[in-house]
């Protein structure tokens, strides 16, 4: 593939990624293309920021690996130890953080049915917020009534 085709393919992958539709293999290819550094479009830069991909990991990079200074080796060992412990905490606790994935997501499960139409999903969200708004209003009214009752009782 020449450079032009690669760039088109990259933008297609970026589109799929933000729609949440990339396979694992496609995501790997996307990371490889973003790390290349040749592609500097606004979409590529945004995808790099979201996916935390650093430029400069190209296989054509000719920098020789440098030996870290002593403090750097110690810090790296400490970070590695923390990473192992963190992984243990995360996977071992059984209580996960909220699912974190980069990019955009918009879906709903209504029972067993998966809904991906963004308009429908937004309508579901708005309906649920409206429902919560009514309950919150009832709560506010109850508080006001309680305060009024106390005031009249004190008089």
């Amino acid at each position: 593939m020449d450079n032009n085709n690669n760039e088109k393919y990259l933008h297609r992958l970026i589109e799929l990624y933000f729609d949440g539709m990339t396979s694992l293999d496609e995501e790997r290819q996307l990371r490889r293309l973003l790390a290349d550094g040749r592609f500097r479009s606004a979409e590529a830069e945004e995808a790099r920021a979201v996916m935390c991909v650093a430029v400069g990991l190209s296989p054509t990079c000719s920098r020789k690996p440098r030996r870290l200074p002593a403090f750097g080796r110690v810090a790296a060992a400490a970070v590695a130890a923390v990473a192992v412990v963190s992984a243990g905490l995360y996977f071992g606790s059984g209580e996960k953080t909220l699912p974190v994935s980069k990019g955009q997501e918009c879906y709903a499960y209504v029972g067993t049915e998966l809904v991906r139409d963004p308009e429908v999903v937004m309508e579901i969200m708005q309906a649920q917020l409206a429902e919560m708004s009514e309950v919150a209003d009832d709560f506010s009214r109850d508080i006001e009534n309680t305060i009024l009752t106390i005031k009249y009782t004190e008089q």
Partner: protein
Amino acid sequence: MKRLIILTLTALCVTMAVSAQSSLHIGRLFTQLQGNPDASVTCIRGGALKDYKLNLFYSVVVEDNDGLSGQIEAALAKDARKALDREVQYRGGRLHYAFYVLGKTAEGLNRYILFSGGRRTVLIYLEGRADRSVINSFLKK
């Protein structure tokens, strides 16, 4: 060697603080109940929530299932202990309405939990730049 130990301990403390801050018991429910015939789960993350000044909207709705409602209330009760601010109402000994403000995420995002109980249980988690007044503006008329 002493330097390595000190660095590791410091980094461990920071990690555990962040982990404690960001992990929520209700988080598990949003994935476990996806596809459950008695539950509805909604997830919206990103640009679609821009008008609400939010980054993340997660909700689960359960109707006529005391078992699942009980699980939701139990998970919520654990997370509620970390709440910085709350509005809570009980009816008939059961949690009827709750609005919790949680501590910020490591990225400085505000977090809120909304709950409505009863025959139809609704749990909503919000995360984003929206402050309390913005949340109140679309919740309370």
